[in-house]
């Protein structure tokens, strides 16, 4: 491959990685805040207590600021496949297309239509029907995530297809296997839990910011309580669920796990490396410094403390026998640290949630200044974990774009020059930087406001006369 062509691949990869990560700042928040808003509004509906309505409006505004940017950046994802990855699109369109089309028709439309009804429908719909709209938004966001992850899971673990020798393309032959394979169930559960934690820690952090200043204490005590009730069990469930996902991946993509653990040779039992310096490249397989927990990797990867975990070297030889000469090893340093950032921050989340739970139980939440500071900083934890998790799953699949079938370097648009990809990368990086700054500014601004008073004005769209059509 010529230098310019490989530059085009690199640039296209950078663009995909950056635009996906940027999109994935907002998506988990939407996945998690939609149900939390539904719960808040339901509590108001059931109890008639005004603070729940005020919280619904307050966090609803934060939700919408992000929702807009999620929608706007989602379109880029859809178009990008065809623009930068036309060989990939042709190869997988038959399999990949149906979930994307179902996502649009079955999920995204639901979300987009009912979000409009929810925002503008406060005075036009009966309270019950209006409450139903936020539940439909919730349903839409979760379904949407499911179908997108169906497509991604197929890239990780292709099932339910056959190769058409005439066209050289993959063709679906079992839609149910594609839609309900283990990989997508794990990936979806993992992403939903991540979303709930992202939103939970955001609500908790914002609530604590207000509590620390003694502002709107009545209202935000309830918000903090709700958030802790959500994140305390779920952060623990996520650790457990994530580790089971790991066992599944060991089976489906052994190389990903071996690379993630920088495990060069097959071991039984295998220890888990907590921290290491060196040992990340073929020429330097032995770390100069290493802290290990004996047998833990065997447990994490296989579910048994004496399980056998295959190493990078034998897997590389095996891949060469199967697919021909080449390098089948992902960027080990990148995936090793992504996994650890994700897991360590996940553990930190559990501790923070436990701390909050304990304070809640002792009814000391309002006076715990240090916890309130920590909770504010804790907003960042899930976002960073989400980033790391996404890098791990995508970088760990390399050099494949479709595992075992299509290499990333063969997936790009051969007719699009490096210059063109570079231009669009530049455009997106500049545009997204500006958007991120504005979003951050708006989030800070609205997170510091008092929740809107209820009664009189203050809701969008007062009752209107005269039908127009």
């Amino acid at each position, binding site marked *: 491959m010529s230098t310019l062509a490989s530059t085009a691949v690199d640039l296209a990869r950078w663009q995909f990685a950056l635009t996906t990560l940027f999109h994935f700042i907002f998506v988990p928040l939407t996945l998690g805040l939609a149900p939390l808003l539904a719960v808040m509004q339901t509590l108001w509906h059931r109890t008639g207590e005004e603070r729940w309505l005020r919280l619904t409006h307050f966090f609803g505004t934060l939700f919408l600021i992000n929702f807009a940017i999620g929608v706007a950046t989602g379109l880029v994802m859809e178009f990008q496949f065809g623009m930068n990855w036309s060989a990939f699109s042709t190869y997988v369109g038959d399999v990949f297309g*149906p979930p994307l089309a179902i996502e649009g028709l079955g999920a995204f439309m639901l979300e987009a239509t009912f979000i409009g009804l929810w925002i503008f429908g406060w005075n036009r719909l009966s309270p019950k029907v209006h409450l139903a709209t936020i539940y439909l938004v919730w349903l839409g966001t979760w379904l949407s995530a499911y179908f997108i992850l169906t497509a991604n899971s197929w890239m990780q673990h292709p099932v339910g297809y056959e190769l058409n020798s005439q066209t050289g393309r993959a063709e679906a032959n079992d839609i149910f296997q594609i839609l309900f394979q283990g990989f997508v169930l794990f990936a979806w559960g993992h992403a939903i839990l991540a979303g709930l934690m992202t939103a939970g820690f955001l609500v908790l952090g914002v609530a604590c910011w207000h509590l620390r200043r003694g502002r709107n204490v009545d209202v935000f005590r309830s918000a903090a309580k709700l958030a802790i009730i959500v994140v305390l069990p779920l952060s623990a469930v996520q650790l457990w669920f994530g580790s089971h996902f790991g066992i599944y991946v060991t089976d489906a993509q052994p190389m990903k796990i071996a690379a993630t653990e920088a495990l060069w040779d097959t071991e039984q039992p295998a220890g888990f490396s907590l921290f290491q310096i060196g040992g990340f490249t073929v020429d330097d397989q032995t770390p100069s410094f290493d802290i290990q927990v004996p047998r833990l990797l065997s447990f994490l990867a296989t579910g048994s403390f004496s399980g056998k975990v295959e190493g990078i070297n034998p897997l590389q030889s095996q891949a060469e026998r199967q697919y021909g000469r080449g390098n089948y090893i992902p960027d080990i340093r990148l995936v090793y640290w992504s996994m650890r950032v994700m897991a360590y921050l996940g553990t930190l989340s559990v501790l923070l949630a436990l701390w909050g739970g304990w304070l809640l139980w002792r009814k000391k939440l309002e006076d715990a200044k240090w916890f309130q500071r920590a909770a504010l900083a804790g907003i960042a934890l899930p976002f960073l974990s989400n980033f790391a998790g996404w890098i791990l799953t995508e970088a760990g699949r390399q050099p494949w774009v479709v595992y075992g079938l299509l290499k990333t370097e063969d997936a790009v648009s051969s007719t699009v020059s490096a210059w063109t990809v570079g231009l669009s990368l530049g455009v997106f990086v500049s545009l997204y930087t500006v958007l991120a700054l504005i979003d951050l500014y708006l989030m800070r601004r609205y997170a510091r406001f008092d929740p809107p008073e209820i009664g009189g004005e203050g809701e969008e769209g007062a009752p209107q006369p005269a039908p127009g059509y």
Partner: protein
Amino acid sequence: MTLEILWFTLLCFLWTGYFVTEGFDFGVGMLLPILGRDEDDRQTMFESIGPLWDGNEVWLVIAGGATFAAFPVWYATMFSGFYIALLLILVLLIVRVLSFEWRAKADSRRWKAVWAWMNTIGSVGAPLLWGIALASLLHGVPIASDQSFAGGFGDLFNGYTVLAGIAVCLLFALHGAVFLTLRTLGDLRERSRHTASGLAPAAAVVGAGFLVWTLVVARDVNDKGVFPGILPVAVAAVAAVGAIFLVRAAKEQWAFAATAMTIVAVVVTLFVSLYPRVMVSDPQFSNSLTIDNASSADYSLTVMTVVAAVLVPVVLLYQAWTYHVFRTRLGGEDAGSPVDLIARKTGG
């Protein structure tokens, strides 16, 4: 074979859905600097499309997804080939989408003015480029024998495609102006009607020019006869002329139906003229992408047909309901006048 025809038809339907629905919210965005004289006007205009634009835009997302699913080769060649145009469309749509949620989120006049302009720029630029891009599918672009795009950004621009872009913009502006006559009250409604009356003949003339040229292009480069393309052209002509009279006669609902019908007929004309090709190759006509050589296998098409048969009616139902919920007029300063009070009692 029949499945390919079905999905070609469905794509025509999805693009029609996108142009008819997002068409009016693009139109409202275009008219912001003209009709939005003060902050109240602009607020009303934003509010008139606020609950609707997002659902409207999903038609595009679905059209994109359906092209990917049903005609992967078409999707791959068109999207990688029309790269710069699509990049521009994405940027325009992104700033436009954000203008809806972000404009009202800060108090400064400057902030609001900037976001209103972002909306307008996106509302003019995106349909202009979509018109150019879709018309290029028919007018022909260089395609290699391996079905990949062999041209450049410049191949999208010629008299015909640029006229297509302008025609789409004018039609959308008219569609948006008529929509505003339906959704607003008082002075803004009057001015919208005035603007619509002015736009209607212009849109009709340019639209007619584009459609006749389409028939010529279809004959010259795509091996088509005048029939059946002439049928939707005739419908478009009747609807466009109807729109001129209905706008002037202040029959707002009917005028909106007429502009919607015109847009439907324009999209249908384009698709009828394309069939059975999806992307015409010029100069090597034999390299053209067709519904057969660009499509997915029957299994995927069957699955999607079942999905579409179940979901499309549901989607249409709840989108129609949304339009019903947001049928009331906005922002009339004379909302307290006797006429409107009666309207409120009887209809609101």
